[in-house]
């Protein structure tokens, strides 16, 4: 079993959803039950494979890649099919494999207009292939391909099943991210031509492992190459000032799309920084770090202020994503093991919590047919269980100790007290203070949201309306996330320990 897992598990996890999607393509769309079950089983199968990988994963060597497969793919350009998993990607892969079956279950009985479960589920499965593939890929071109594969399904998901301004939101999402990745691919190809091995011989490779701490680049060249990657990953995160696509995409996307977007897609960007940009170009990363950290804290404050100004619940949660991803980027910008571990934790925590919040927003919208905060109120009276869950998630999101959100934010702030040697301590301590204010704002906007939606009495317009409380598919989709938010809050070490090895090898150039 272990042997089979070693050679096949990553590829099976990547391509099983695609295979499922192809089968669904061939079955007529009237057969809805078939499509639902096949999508669910496929995604559960991927989850099982990921559990298998997690089971056989050697946690003491989380710094080295495991389950490596290295095969010829495009000889002409020396791009190889290299997949593998280490301590950084494992938590994110588990998160992805968990979220997908949950969204399938959540949508079981209420597919958004214009219905069509077949197309909707096919898109989700293609999306899963892209996401899982991105986290597994260890070759820049393979990474690039998977990184882009997620664009099309998400574009259609927003554009076809989205809200009123879906056309605008979907094309904006597509154009922004495509611009970033076009710049990113230039950087990748430049690395291919310019990077040299330890003996000064040109590498001519796209393998991330061989490109680690690439030599032979003039400092300005390295800065420019990093800049290209920064655009590619930074737009995806999204960092201020490239965040403007996010609120639109989130607001217009169907619930399930928002959940996947928040829980997984944004992480592709931050993951790219940790996996590619920093290990390959450590010197350039150090020169960029103060600016990245600056944009990160601007994002924290700006995102929080925007949250305070929102009148739409979903848009508010979207802006809170900007703020939270700011903490993750701040942790990354310190270039310390502690900071990067915090970032990995922050990614998982944000995925669970914000994913949950978008689920809730979707369910609220289903019942109220609006997300306008001022028309709501008294959710605790109308649907008490849902109200309590919303309260719980708000607490988790604002970083209450004991829940997962805390371990994403607090260590990131702490890490900026002492950035890697070479970066200005004074500057980062300044950032630290600003970021700490950001948590106060976060408490502010989340509690205010809770107060306006959950507390008080329902408005007159809802009198006589009966609201269903949490229903079965919702319970099944939410309980795993809620449990994980608590468990990871109490035992954060599972992720810190897993990530630390990988983070150390990512930062090996800094001698930590």
């Amino acid at each position: 079993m272990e042997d089979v897992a070693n050679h096949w598990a990553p590829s099976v996890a990547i391509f099983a959803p695609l295979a499922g999607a192809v089968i669904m393509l061939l079955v007529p769309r009237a057969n809805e039950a078939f499509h639902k079950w096949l999508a669910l089983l496929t995604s559960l199968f991927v989850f099982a494979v990921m559990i298998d990988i997690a089971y056989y994963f050697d946690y003491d060597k989380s710094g080295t890649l495991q389950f490596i497969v290295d095969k010829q793919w495009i000889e002409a350009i020396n791009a190889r099919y290299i997949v593998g998993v280490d301590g950084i990607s494992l938590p994110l892969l588990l998160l992805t494999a968990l979220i997908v079956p949950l969204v399938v279950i959540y949508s079981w009985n209420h597919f958004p207009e214009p219905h069509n479960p077949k197309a909707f589920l096919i898109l989700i499965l293609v999306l899963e292939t892209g996401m899982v593939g991105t986290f597994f890929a260890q070759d820049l071109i393979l990474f690039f391909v998977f990184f882009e594969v997620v664009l099309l399904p998400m574009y259609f998901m927003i554009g076809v099943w989205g809200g009123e301004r879906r056309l605008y939101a979907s094309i904006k999402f597509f154009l922004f991210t495509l611009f970033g990745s076009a710049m990113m691919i230039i950087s990748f190809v430049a690395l291919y031509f310019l990077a040299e091995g330890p003996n000064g011989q040109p590498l001519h490779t796209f393998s991330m492992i061989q490109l680690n701490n690439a030599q032979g680049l003039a400092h300005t060249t390295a800065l420019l190459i990093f800049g290209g990657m920064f655009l590619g990953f930074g737009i995806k995160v999204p960092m201020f000032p490239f965040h403007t696509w996010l609120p639109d995409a989130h607001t217009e996307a169907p619930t399930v799309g928002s959940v996947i977007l928040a829980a997984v897609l944004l992480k592709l960007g931050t993951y790219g920084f940790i996996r590619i940009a920093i290990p390959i170009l450590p010197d350039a990363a150090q020169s960029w770090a103060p600016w990245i950290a600056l944009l990160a804290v601007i994002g924290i404050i700006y995102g929080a202020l925007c949250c305070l100004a929102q009148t739409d619940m979903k848009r508010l949660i979207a802006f809170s994503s900007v703020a939270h991803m700011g903490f993750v980027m701040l942790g990354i910008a310190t270039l310390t093991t502690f900071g990067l571990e915090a970032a990995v934790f922050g990614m998982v925590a944000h995925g669970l919590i914000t994913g949950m919040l978008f689920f809730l927003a979707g369910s609220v919208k289903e019942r109220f047919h609006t997300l306008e905060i001022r028309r709501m109120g008294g959710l605790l009276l109308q649907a008490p269980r849902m109200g309590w869950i919303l309260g719980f998630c708000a607490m988790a999101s604002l970083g209450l100790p004991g829940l997962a959100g805390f371990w994403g934010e607090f260590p990131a702030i702490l890490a900026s007290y002492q950035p890697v040697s070479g970066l200005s301590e004074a500057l980062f301590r300044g950032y630290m203070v600003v970021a700490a204010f950001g948590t106060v704002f976060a408490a502010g906007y989340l509690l205010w949201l809770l107060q306006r939606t959950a507390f008080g009495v329902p408005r007159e317009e809802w009198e006589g309306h009966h609201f269903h409380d949490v229903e079965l598919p919702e319970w099944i989709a939410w309980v795993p996330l809620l449990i994980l938010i608590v468990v990871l809050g109490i035992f954060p070490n599972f992720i810190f320990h897993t990530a630390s090895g990988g983070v150390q090898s990512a930062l090996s150039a800094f001698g930590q």
Partner: protein
Amino acid sequence: MNLLAFTTPHVDYHALAPELILGATLVVLLLVDLASERNRALLGTVAGIGLLAALVPVLTLAVDGTDRFVIAGNPAYVVDNFALTFKALFLIAGYVVVLISTNYIAEGDYYEGEYYFLLLSSILGMVVMASSRDLISIFIALETLSIPAYMLASWRKRDDRSNEAGLKYYLMGVFATAIMLYGMSLLFGVSGSTVLADIGAYTAKQGTQPIITLGIVFCIVGFAFKVSAVPFHTWAPDTYQGAPTPITAFLSVASKAAGFVAIMSLVFIGFFGQSDVWQPMFWVLAVLTMTVGNLIALRQTNVVRLFAYSSVAQAGYMLAPLAVAGDLSDAKTALSAITIYLIIYAAMNLGAFAVIITVARKTGSAEIESFNGLFEYAPGITVLMTFFLFALAGIPPLAGWFAKFVIFRATLDAGTAAAYVLAVFIAVNSVIALFYYARVAQAMWMAPVANDDRTPIRIPPSLTAALAICAVVVVGVGFYPQAVAHIGDMATFV
């Protein structure tokens, strides 16, 4: 020299077989047209079989693998891997054009026999172009492929637009040819030979000379018309929109590829030593072509016109590697990149036109609005069109990404500042292009059905076959690009 001592040249008939088969097919077509007044369906079949039959010797020559001179000792007309690759491309693209023409021509009350005759003549010219390494044979190939195309463009003779298309194409075409001939005469004048290899050897030894520069510039300008590079593109949108749609597909794919074949032979064999002249020229042409093409495409409301500008922009990407192909290793990557791009582009663009023709069979229109809500009643075609559109935009995992990627790679291989700036232009342009490709996708997927008319579209078998061929290439190559990368690497003569 004693003229009486003429000896018959030794002709390698195996090497010439594809051209001979096409020539024979042309004769058969005329005879069938005469003999069978009633059985019109036979004509398309004969044309298709002729194209596939011509493919057979191409394959046997490829398996054989040795480079040959068709006339022993004469480097004017050669058969090498480069020539074979493009012969195969022209024949297969021609076959797909025959497939998408069949119903269009049969149902549209047009002359059928002449249509296929001219189409195959044009393809014959292209096949000849792939082997030509001599100014005269290049010129003959160019005329053989162009003159039938002028007539085909105006084939819808009762339509003013089509007449305009043919006339515009003809006037612009002969104008370009005249400029090119002038350039050729200058080059012949200074070098004393029409064979490209001789011209190459001569120009490499010379420094910058006004006459040589002028000759090179004029030759390139002539073919810039053919590939519709800005500012020589003005004929393309009107011609594309007015011509019968299958002919538009043919012009935008095969005719363009033939132009690139000629440019590559001229530049890499004839003018290689003069890279100071053509590199900057291609840089400017490439940037102008992709930017202007894309920006104007943004404003189009007619799908065919949109694809006209899109194909202008696509030519810009293909010109880019030429701008930095000055030294030998860069020339190799540039050559293979352009070859790969042309192959993939042929599949994507022909596929898209096959869908446009299929949809127009029902709606009778080529406005973007006629695609509204297509997903509701024709999901299969919608998915295919989506594949072709986003392949053209270069989104993985569809083949277009690899085409774009090799262009990036070939451009950046040079490593100069000019190369990096050019690469950024390509990157920004691919983002602009996405916008208009996505607009067609938006109409199909996200707009409500026009007139609530949900009658399904019947797809005739020949169109189904064309769609299948293109879709297999677009999806297959996207996942396993090595399939064409290998061809691209082989098809060099530098």
